[in-house]
C-alpha cells in the first residue's frame, strides 16, 4: 500500500452559466438605464432644482439644497454606466443585485431632480410622508413575519387590516379613538384565530384560507358600508389621532420631522417592530416559535406544543394587522370607505419577503415602499409629463421588481405553509 492522502482539494474556479448570464443582463440593463437618464432627464435641461429642508411651521429655517439639474443627472448617468460596464467585464461578480439596487436608487434621485427643475420641492415633506405611508405596510409586514415564522402563510392580512379599519371607524365613532383602536386589535386577533383554526386545526391550505378571509371581510365591510354607514353618518365619524411631538427628539434636523412628530401609529409601529425583534431572536418563546416554523416535528419531540405556538403567534399577527388597519381610519381620515386598504396588506407581504422575514428588514422595506407611494403623489403635484396613471402604478411595479429580482435567495422558514400532523 502506498502513501495515504486525504483528498482535500481546492474547488476549481468555476462560473455558473446562469449567474454569468444574469450579470450580463443586469449590466446591459444598467447601461440602458444610464442612457435613458442622460438623454431623458439630463441633456438640454436647464435650471436648478431646489429641495427645501425646512419643515412646515418650523421656527428656524435650515435653507434649501440647490442642485443644478443637468450636471447632476449626467454624473449619475456616468456612475450607473460605469457600474454596468464593470458588471459586463467581471461577469462573475456576486454584487450584481446590490449594484442594481444602488443604480435604481440613484436613478430615482436623478428623476426627482429633473422633475423639480426650475421649481422647488419640500424634501422634508417627502420624507415625512414616506414614513406615514410606510406605517400600514410595516404593520402588515410584521403581521406576516409573526405568522410565517411559525409556519403559517398569512394571505389574509389584507382582510385583517380592512376589518381593523372598519372596526376602528365604527367603534371609534361610538366610544372614542382609544376604544376604536382596542376594538380593531381585538377583531384582528379574532380573524387571526379564525385563520389558525382553519389552517392549524382543520389543516386547510393556507393560501385558500387567506383568500377566504379576504373575500369574507371585503364582502361584509362593503355591505355594511353601503347599507348601514351611508345612512348613519354618525357611525362613520371617528376622531383622528393627532400628532405628538416628542420633546427634544423632534427638534433634530431632518430626523426629527421624519420620525418624531407623528401620531401614535408611527411610534407604535416602531415599538412593535423593535419588540418583535427582541421577542423572536432573544427570548425563549421566540426561539420556540422559530423552531416551530422551521421543523415542527423536531419542536414536538422536544415537548413544544406546535399547535398552541401557532395559535398564539397567528393571533398576535392578526392583532398587529388589526391595529395597523385602524391606521386607515383612526390615524388618517377618520372614516371608512369600501376597500380602503387597497392592497397594502399584500404589499406588506412583499415587504416581509424583501425584509427577509425579519422585523427590522420589514421596517427598511416598508420605507422603500412608502417612498414609492409618496413619490407618486408628489410627482402629480409637480406636474411632470409622465401620466398620473402610470405613476400610480409605481408602488406595485416596485413590488414586482423587488420580489422577483432584488431579493436574491432570501429563505422562508422551512415549514412555511406546511400543515403539521401529529404522528
Amino acid at each position, binding site marked *: 500500500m502506498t502513501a495515504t492522502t486525504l*483528498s482535500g482539494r481546492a474547488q476549481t474556479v468555476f462560473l*455558473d452559466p446562469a449567474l454569468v448570464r444574469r450579470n450580463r443582463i443586469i449590466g446591459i440593463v444598467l447601461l440602458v438605464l444610464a442612457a435613458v437618464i442622460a438623454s431623458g432627464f439630463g441633456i438640454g435641461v436647464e435650471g436648478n432644482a431646489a429641495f427645501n429642508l425646512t419643515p412646515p411651521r418650523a421656527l428656524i429655517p435650515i435653507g434649501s439644497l440647490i442642485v443644478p439639474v443637468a450636471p447632476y443627472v449626467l454624473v449619475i448617468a456616468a456612475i450607473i454606466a460605469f457600474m454596468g460596464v464593470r458588471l459586463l467585464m467581471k461577469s462573475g461578480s456576486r454584487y450584481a443585485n446590490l449594484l442594481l439596487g444602488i443604480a435604481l436608487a440613484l436613478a430615482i434621485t436623478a428623476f426627482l431632480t429633473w422633475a423639480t427643475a426650475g421649481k422647488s420641492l419640500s424634501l422634508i415633506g417627502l420624507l415625512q410622508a414616506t414614513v406615514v405611508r410606510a406605517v400600514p405596510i410595516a404593520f402588515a409586514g410584521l403581521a406576516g413575519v409573526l405568522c410565517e415564522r411559525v409556519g403559517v402563510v398569512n394571505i389574509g392580512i389584507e382582510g385583517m387590516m380592512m376589518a381593523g379599519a372598519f372596526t376602528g371607524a365604527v367603534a371609534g365613532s361610538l366610544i372614542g379613538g382609544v376604544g376604536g383602536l382596542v376594538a380593531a386589535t381585538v377583531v384582528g386577533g379574532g380573524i387571526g384565530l379564525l385563520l389558525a383554526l382553519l389552517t392549524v386545526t382543520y389543516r386547510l391550505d393556507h393560501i385558500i384560507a387567506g383568500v377566504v378571509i379576504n373575500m369574507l371581510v371585503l364582502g361584509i365591510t362593503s355591505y355594511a358600508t353601503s347599507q348601514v354607514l351611508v345612512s348613519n353618518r354618525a357611525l362613520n365619524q371617528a376622531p383622528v389621532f393627532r400628532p405628538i411631538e416628542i420633546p427634544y427628539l423632534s427638534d433634530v434636523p431632518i430626523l426629527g420631522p421624519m420620525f418624531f412628530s407623528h401620531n401614535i401609529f408611527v411610534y407604535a409601529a416602531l415599538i412593535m417592530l423593535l419588540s418583535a425583534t427582541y421577542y423572536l431572536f432573544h*427570548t425563549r418563546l421566540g426561539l420556540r416559535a422559530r423552531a416551530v416554523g422551521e*421543523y415542527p416535528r423536531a419542536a414536538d419531540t*422536544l415537548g413544544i406544543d406546535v399547535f398552541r405556538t401557532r395559535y398564539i403567534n397567528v393571533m398576535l399577527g392578526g392583532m398587529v394587522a388589526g391595529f395597523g388597519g385602524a391606521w386607515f381610519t383612526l390615524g388618517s381620515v377618520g372614516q371608512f370607505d369600501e376597500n380602503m386598504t387597497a392592497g397594502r396588506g399584500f404589499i406588506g407581504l412583499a415587504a416581509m419577503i424583501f425584509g427577509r422575514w425579519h422585523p427590522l428588514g420589514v421596517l427598511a422595506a416598508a420605507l422603500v415602499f412608502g417612498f414609492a407611494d409618496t413619490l407618486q403623489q408628489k410627482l402629480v403635484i409637480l406636474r411632470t409629463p409622465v401620466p398620473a396613471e402610470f405613476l400610480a402604478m409605481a408602488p406595485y411595479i416596485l413590488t414586482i421588481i423587488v420580489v422577483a429580482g432584488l431579493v436574491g435567495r432570501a429563505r422562508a422558514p422551512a415549514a412555511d405553509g406546511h400543515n403539521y400532523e401529529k404522528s
Partner: protein
Amino acid sequence: MIITLDNITKRYGSFVANDSISLSVRSGEVHCLLGENGAGKTTLMNVIYGLSKADGGQISIDGKAVQFASPKDAIAAGIGMVHQHFMLIPAFSVTENVVLGLEPTLFGDRLDLDAARKRVRDISAQFGLEIDPDAPLEGMPVGIQQRVEIVKILYRAADIMIFDEPTAVLTPQEVIEFFKIIESLRAAGKAILFITHKLNEVMEIADRITVLRHGKVVGEADPATTSSGELANLMVGRPVSMLVSRTEAKAGDVVLALENVHVTDGTSKLALDGIDLVVKAGEIVGIAGVHGNGQTELIEVIAGLRPIVDGRICFAGGDIAGISPRERHRRGLAHVPEDRSIAGLAVTMSVAENMVLDSYYEPRFSRFGRIDWSSVRKAAAQLVSQFDVRTKSVDASAASLSGGNQQKVVIAREMSRPIKLMIAAQPTRGVDVGSIEYIHKRIVEARDEGVGVLLVSTELDEVLALSDRILVMFDGRILAEFDSRTADRSLIGLAMAGVVTQSQTHAPEIAP
C-alpha cells in the same frame, strides 16, 4: 435504573403494529432491537418516547408505572431519543438546537445563550464529542449532527437513551467513532436501546438482543451464543441466503460513457466535478458512497433530468446531451429512481396507470389521443404476474402497496421495454427481505441478458453483493475504483470517507 415494557400493543385501524411486546433495558447495558423495515421498531420507540399512545400494556421505570402523554413527560422521566431522521433545525446553531425546549433564561424570558454554550461545551468535553457550540448546523457532516443529537439528550440528563437506526446515515469510519461514543455512554451507566436491522452491528455492540417480526417479539438472544445467520433467520422468519448467486460477468460493448461531466446543484456549486465513467453491456457497475456526494446528480444527468454544464455523455453510441428523457427511454434507458414515492410512481394513481407511464402514448395503448384502458389493464396484469407484484388488482392505487411491491412495479415498468442500460438507484431501500432477494435476482438476470447496469446505493453490502466493478463517489468525483472479486471492505469504507491510496485511483478507460 431499569425501564420495563410489559405487553405493549399498538394498533392502526385493523393493523397491529406492536403486538404484546415486552422487554427491559438496564443501566450500563446496550439492548439491541433487531427487525426488518416495517417490523414495528419505530412504532415501539414512538410509544416509549410519548409520541404516540399505546392501546395496551404498561411501561415502568424502576418498577414504577409511568404514563407519557407527550415527549415532554418522557423527557422528564429521563428518556432521550436520537431519531432516525435527525430532529435538528438547520437554520439554528448547535447551542440553539441543544437547548430548545429547555432553555436557560434571564429576566424577562431572555435567552441565556452564554450559560447554554457553557453547558454544551462541558457535556461535549465530558464524553469526548468535540462539538463547537456556535457552529451553524447547516452543512455539518451527518456524523457531527448525530453528536449534536446526543448532546441534546445528555443536556436533558437522560439515563435511558434510544437510538433509532443510528448508523443508517454514517460512513463505516463514522460508525467506528459512533460505537466508541456508545461505549463511553455505557460506561457512564446509561441504559441504551439500540434499534437496527444490521446484523453485524448487533453482534458487535449488543449486550442483549430482542428480535421483532410483524410487530411481535420472535426471539431473544445473547450475542455470545448466537450467530448472525441465526439472527437473520429469526428476523425474516425463514432461512435466507445473504449472498446473491451470480456468475462471472461477460462484459461487451460500451453502452454508457461519461467524459469529464460537470453539473451544478442548482445554485452555483458544482455537484459533479469531472466525472469519467464507463458502463459496458452485461456488467454491473456499483457506485458506493455516502448519500449526498453527487450520486443524485449523476443519476439525474444520465436520465436527462438535470442540465449538463460541461463534458459529454454518450449512450448507445451517440451524444445524448440535450435529448429529452422520453427519447432516452426510447433508445433503451431504464431508470429506477432513488425515491419511488416521489419520482418512481404517481402513488395516488393505479398500478395499471403506473405501469404505462412510459408508454401510454404508444399506438398499442393510445389511438387518436384516446387511451385504450382495456389493453392497458391487460398489459399491466401481465407485468403484475410476471414480476410477482402482490396487489389486490391492477386498479388498486400504488399507495396501497407495500414498499417492496411498489418497487417491483417500478422495475416491471422499466424492464417492460427493450433496454440497453438500467440505472438502479437505491433499488431496495425500505423493501422487505423477500423482495430484496427478488429484486437482486432480476437485476442480475438483466445483466446476464446483456444489459449494462449502473447500481447506485448507499448500502455498501448491496454494492458488494451485486457489482462487478465498484466505484466510490466522494464530493462530486469518482475517487476510487475496485474490482469486486478483490475488493476490501475497509478500503472502500475509507474511500467513502475521502481517503484513498495511490493504487486505487480511478483511471477511466477511454471510450471508443
